[in-house]
């Protein structure tokens, strides 16, 4: 089953996404990174890279972000991976809350990441 990784500026948003998705799709694998390592608002490149590196050993991943700079951080983390691992990841521009709930539900229904990305498309924002 595919996994969802959320990259946010805020640890509280990250926690809130986990709370929401666990309510809607308990069995979906959802991971959320929020805030920087120094505890301020911002996205954490190293934490994002670590989780993507680990998951893509054997799992396809959809990544959702909360703002443009989180998107850039996620993009740079994806670019830092090997090409084989990179291919297992799709970065979505969907609105974070709606997109996370949709992605978790679609993943738990057994869709692959191409299927998830297709269904997230109507939720895309200019990030």
């Amino acid at each position: 089953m595919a996994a969802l990784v959320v990259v946010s500026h805020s640890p509280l948003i990250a926690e809130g996404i986990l709370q929401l998705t666990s309510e809607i799709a308990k069995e979906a694998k959802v991971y959320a990174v929020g805030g920087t390592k120094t505890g301020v608002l911002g996205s954490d490149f190293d934490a994002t890279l670590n989780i993507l590196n680990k998951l893509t050993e054997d799992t396809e991943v959809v990544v959702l972000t909360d703002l443009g700079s989180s998107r850039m951080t996620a993009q740079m983390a994806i670019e830092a991976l090997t090409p084989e691992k990179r291919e297992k990841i799709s970065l979505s521009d969907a609105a974070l809350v709606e997109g996370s709930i949709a992605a978790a539900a679609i993943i738990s229904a057994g869709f692959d990441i191409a299927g998830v990305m297709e269904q997230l498309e109507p939720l895309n924002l200019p990030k």
Partner: protein
Amino acid sequence: MGVTSETIRGILLDMALIIEENKQYLTDLDAAIGDGDHGHNMARGFAAIKTKLGENPELTPEGLLKTAAMAPISNVGGASGPLYGTLFLKGAGAIGGKPELELADLAALLREGVEGVKTRGRSDFGEKTMLDVLVPVQRSLESDAAAGVSCGEALAKAKKLAEECAGKTRDIVATKGRASYLGERSLGHIDPGAMSSCLLISTLKEG
């Protein structure tokens, strides 16, 4: 003689210094039209560059730029981290293993770096961002390199141009980044990213 590793190291340290000195100014500019953290984010990123350089005494120009790229990416958290990180990282790719850089190499470094920033930030010249300084500076260096202008003269022109261009962002309505939410109300304010780029350009030197 070109720009040596030692000079590039000196420039990067000067960059860290000028950002630290202007931390509050950049944050104040950002408080007017953004989220008020640009100076502090930049200072954190460039302090990390300084630390990383201290840990790696013998680096080539490419190695120096790659080290300078990773520090803000890992330590900033805001948009300036990935954007300046991309500028350095793509710039490093453009110079390869060259031991010294001529003016044409500096122009190529900035060309690749600026293209990287455009792609990363999904932006271009004229949107009230750092690109409003970096794009004209890159073009100026490129045409001076082609015209055979000396490195010192080209850098002096580039610094003057950077100041003018940063000032001109006052007259641009933001269409990218957080300032774009303000629309017309972003007029009359200098873009903090354009100013941080201007400060960084001001540290360039040939030896």
